[in-house]
């Protein structure tokens, strides 16, 4: 029930933000994302993720501010090979360990642009949810955690248009992702470096 509520809320936020594009143009970003685990997340998966994509829409509300929404997906994977680990104070398990994190952000965001034109440096922040599914495999067995996390994602980046009359450009940004602790699941955080194509409309 909680999950349905979260999905509904997230879709509603995304829809509202997309509809605001109608006001006066905006930007579409299609990004490939790398992600580097930070903080306690490195205890679970320490390998950077190069499997990530996101689609983002931003609509101008003033000349220098956009609001929008983003949906994405990152897969973290680490193969720890043969590992011996404690399962409790007295229990020990040994096996071929692989760990996965599937992370899906669904957020509303706002950005401020320092200048307009060919180079558009910006700062911004996203607010919303991360759906995170973690799996810890030992051989053919795994333990799984899944939950919707509240999340914030401050970022700084640059959109660079390919020529002064072009509406196609390259988007590059650095984004700190923080998925808050839930009742059953821990906090996850990572640094995202996203690069992709940007379309002005």
């Amino acid at each position, binding site marked *: 029930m909680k999950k349905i509520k979260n999905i509904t809320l997230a879709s509603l936020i995304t829809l509202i933000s997309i509809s605001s594009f109608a006001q006066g143009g905006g930007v579409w970003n299609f990004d490939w994302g790398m992600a580097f685990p930070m903080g306690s997340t490195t205890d679970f998966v320490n390998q950077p993720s190069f499997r990530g994509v996101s689609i983002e829409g931003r609509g101008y509300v003033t000349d220098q501010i956009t609001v929008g929404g983003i949906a994405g997906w990152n897969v973290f994977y680490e193969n720890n090979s043969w590992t011996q680990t404690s399962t*409790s104070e007295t229990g020990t398990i040994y*096996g071929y360990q692989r760990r996965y994190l599937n992370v899906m952000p669904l957020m509303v965001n706002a950005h401020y642009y320092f200048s307009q034109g060919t180079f558009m440096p910006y700062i911004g922040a996203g607010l919303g949810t991360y759906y995170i599914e973690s799996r810890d495999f030992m051989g053919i067995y795994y333990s799984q955690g899944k939950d919707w996390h509240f999340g914030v994602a401050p970022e700084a980046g640059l959109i660079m248009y390919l020529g002064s009359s072009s509406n196609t450009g390259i988007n590059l940004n650095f984004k700190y992702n923080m998925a808050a602790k839930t009742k059953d699941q821990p906090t996850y955080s990572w640094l995202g470096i996203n690069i992709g194509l940007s379309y002005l409309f």
Partner: protein
Amino acid sequence: MMKTLLPFKRISILVVLFSGILLLQSCYPDDTLSPTQTDVVYTNYYDSAFSLFKDYSLYYMPDTVFNIDTSKGAQPIGDQSLILNDIATNMQSMGYTRISGDDPNVTPDLVIVPSGIITDNVSVYYYYPYYGYGWGWDGWGGYGWGYPGYYPPVPYYTSYTTGTLRLEMFNPSDYRVIKNDTINPVYWTCGINGVLEGNDINSRITSTIDQAFKQSPYLKTNAN
């Protein structure tokens, strides 16, 4: 700085491109294992017994690996002497002496009960066919031209056999009577599980038994 609306077609090409990348890299990449990599060794101990092992010296082990599956036609546990000999070797290197159990005046400090089960596992996966527009099964009893509509998913099966070996240790002198039953608390337990495929099963059995003792250094005795 308003610019012309991007032709939708170009956006859709990009979306397709991105979804393609997603599909190639599924949620769980690199998720194939060799039979050896399915081996898992689990051990646990009774925390009150943790400090007792060091003073023990004699143990008894039956000459059978009991089958947990007592139903008729249960698959027999493979190479029993391989399993029992390897346990005996490990117990010896931990400092224990095996007794035959023939002399009623000699009570062992520990009894090891080895047991096993062989299980056939069947996994069902579903494949959702997509025929697109055109000729195809129309789902209502024949071929025809039209919108594909609903197609039932096609199931496919994979089966694999797993072997589980369980070792349990208890002290026969430590028992409680609960509801007129004599219960021995289990001092040490071990579960070994793996997919029974390939031609190195015997070496996997011995190396996993060795691992079980290796990850339980507290079993070592100083009595001898």
